[in-house]
């Protein structure tokens, strides 16, 4: 680990001032940042410990809920309003990491976590995300776990967060704070596709800090489900996951939310598949058609072709479970 200055600002304004030049990193749980610092993928000159700032509250708003960026994954997962009105969020959180890591990791940090691509994490390998212009080792290499949607010739790394998939499905947005003030950005628009600049993963400006997540309430959020498929039963990243929400009246779908994890270079919202569902009778036929639509345009590499079928089945099954009546 390279040496760094450790700063512990006493207020949000101080933190924003300290983060100004982009050479520093904000740290909350530290579970991803410290891991990456130990392997020299991250070498910040300073880290800004924001854990003592009052940003951990979960509050009701007229539109839904506001989750403070420093709320911990374990606390959000068991919050009564989350479990009741946004089950997909609670399920995605409980399917993430391990109990110890969920106690440490913050909501803001979860959304900022870096890809698990092994070439990104290995500083001896070429990686356009870590070292722009050096090439992509995954495209000709081991890519069983890599993305099939949103890929470019520069990068096929998967976005690793489960939570982000659930939040993108529910139209969550982020409150971002910088020296210029505060702004709101839809989470789906927050993440960028890799294109030719995979090192730019989001629209965060240098020194800008996520302070909260705004989660709008909806009937689809109340009837929602997260289904995660992985190589082992627990404590593992997704091969494929699906976050779905449905509003159904008299057997007819009024509103549908679909997002996929483990297959995209960003949390993958499937809007076209959603609009295809609206007005249809809830059932296997509609769900299978939606799953096919969601994977339109998928581009497999050497070893990850299986993800296309797996994602379709996962999505169709999640829709079936969400429609099944149980609002769990």
């Amino acid at each position, binding site marked *: *680990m*390279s*040496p*760094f*200055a*450790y700063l*512990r600002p006493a207020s949000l304004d101080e933190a924003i001032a300290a983060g100004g030049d982009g050479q520093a990193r904000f*740290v909350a*749980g*530290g*579970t991803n940042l*410290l*891991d990456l610092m*130990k*392997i*020299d993928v991250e*070498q910040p*000159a300073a880290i800004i*410990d924001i*854990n003592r700032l009052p940003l951990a509250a979960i509050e009701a708003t007229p539109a839904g809920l506001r989750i403070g960026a420093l709320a911990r994954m*374990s606390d959000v997962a068991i919050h009564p309003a989350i479990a009741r009105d946004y089950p997909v969020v609670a399920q995605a959180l409980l399917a993430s*990491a*391990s*109990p*110890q*890591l969920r*106690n*440490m990791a913050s909501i803001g940090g979860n959304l900022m976590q870096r890809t698990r691509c*092994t*070439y990104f*994490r*290995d*500083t*001896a*390998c*070429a990686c356009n995300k870590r*070292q722009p*212009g*050096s*090439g992509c*080792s995954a495209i*000709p*290499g081991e890519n069983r776990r890599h993305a099939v949607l949103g890929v470019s010739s520069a990068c096929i790394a998967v976005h690793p967060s489960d939570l982000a998939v659930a939040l993108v499905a529910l139209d969550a947005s982020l409150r971002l704070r910088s020296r210029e003030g505060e702004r709101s950005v839809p989470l789906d628009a927050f993440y960028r596709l890799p294109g030719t600049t995979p090192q730019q993963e989001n629209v965060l400006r240098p020194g800008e800090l996520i302070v909260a997540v705004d989660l709008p309430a909806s009937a689809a959020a109340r009837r929602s489900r997260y289904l995660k498929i992985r190589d082992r*039963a*627990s*404590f593992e990243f997704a091969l494929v996951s699906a976050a779905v929400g449905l509003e159904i009246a008299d057997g007819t779908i009024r509103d549908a939310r679909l997002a996929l994890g483990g297959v995209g270079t960003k949390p993958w919202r499937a809007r076209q598949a959603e609009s295809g569902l609206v007005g249809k009778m809830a059932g296997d036929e509609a769900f299978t058609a939606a799953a096919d639509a969601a994977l339109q345009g998928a581009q497999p590499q050497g070893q990850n072709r299986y993800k296309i079928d797996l994602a379709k089945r996962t999505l169709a099954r999640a829709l079936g479970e969400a429609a099944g009546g149980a609002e769990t």
Partner: protein
Amino acid sequence: MESILPCGSGLLPDAALQPIPEVGMPAPDFSLPGVGKRPIRLRDFRGHPVILAFAPPGWDPGSAEQMAVLNQAAAGLLPDSVRLVGIAMDGPWCSLAVEGEDALRFPLLRDFDPAGGVAHRYGVYGKRAVIVIDGEGILRWKAVMANGILPRPELVADALRAIAPAGEGILAMNRRQFLLCALAASVVLHLWPDSAHAETPAGAPAAPAPKPLPPQARHVTLKVNGAEHALALDTRVTLLDALREHIGLTGTKKGCDQGSCGACTVLADGRRIKSCLTLAAMEEGKAIVTIEGLAQGERLHPMQAAFIKHDAFQCGYCTPGQIMAAVALVREGHAGSEEEIREWMSGNLCRCGAYPNIVTAIREAAAEAKT
């Protein structure tokens, strides 16, 4: 009078700011706990080239299953007429058995914790590294790699050049130097056995990193098992390393050091966390409880007693972390069924496979806690 830095010592702020020795500079002295009472000091080996290996605990170059890897790596470097037939460790001495020749002995100091004081002093904190010091006490070669990095063939060539006499080619080296260098290269390759034969993918090499800051020191007060400890720590020190290396509470274990294995689990303000993925400075002000803080005097915590009763471990290395996680699990109310216990213990690995007994112990301790 040179100052001697004990292995694993706390680094005082001024020590942290001493320059890191580069190739060609005198190697700073240090002492290691020796066999018996007498510590081993680097200066004791003056006259012999010395290899320092900063490797995971338990690494043994002489063990049978590792000989094949070492021999394979050395084979490519040694002349055809020289065949390495064995490596044995006798305290700090490494003995190379060579077919038809007398054994070659030289010091190989290998029990360095990558997070200890010597690693700090040599600028390889948290890294896997091999350092070669010549008989005059001058640092001659340093190979540093972060975990998970592929070794590069150039490293071996660098090592050969480092030991070759000035102005002469590699072939001018005598056989002893050559063997030593071959062993050093083998050691480096061996430290990453899985990746030693992997190809380094094509692409432009990484740009040189900007010159790093000097190490930064900070005063940190930690509250552990009810006692306060005022420490002067490098900012990079994790809670785990602070507990083990600076406070001396070695019950909390370092397994993977990357949040995967759970051996380092402790409680912070009553919540279970992985102490390897948080900085000591970040945990200031919290009440930390380690495995040493569970028993009441001679009376074991019920979870400790249940682990013993049900034989819930074999080698015991993961056990402190398992017990700390299990104590938290019961408080969280996740001991309802065997399935639930397994899911909520998934952050703790046991390579001996004691899982069935661990689950049984937790069920019993949880049932007792209710009554």
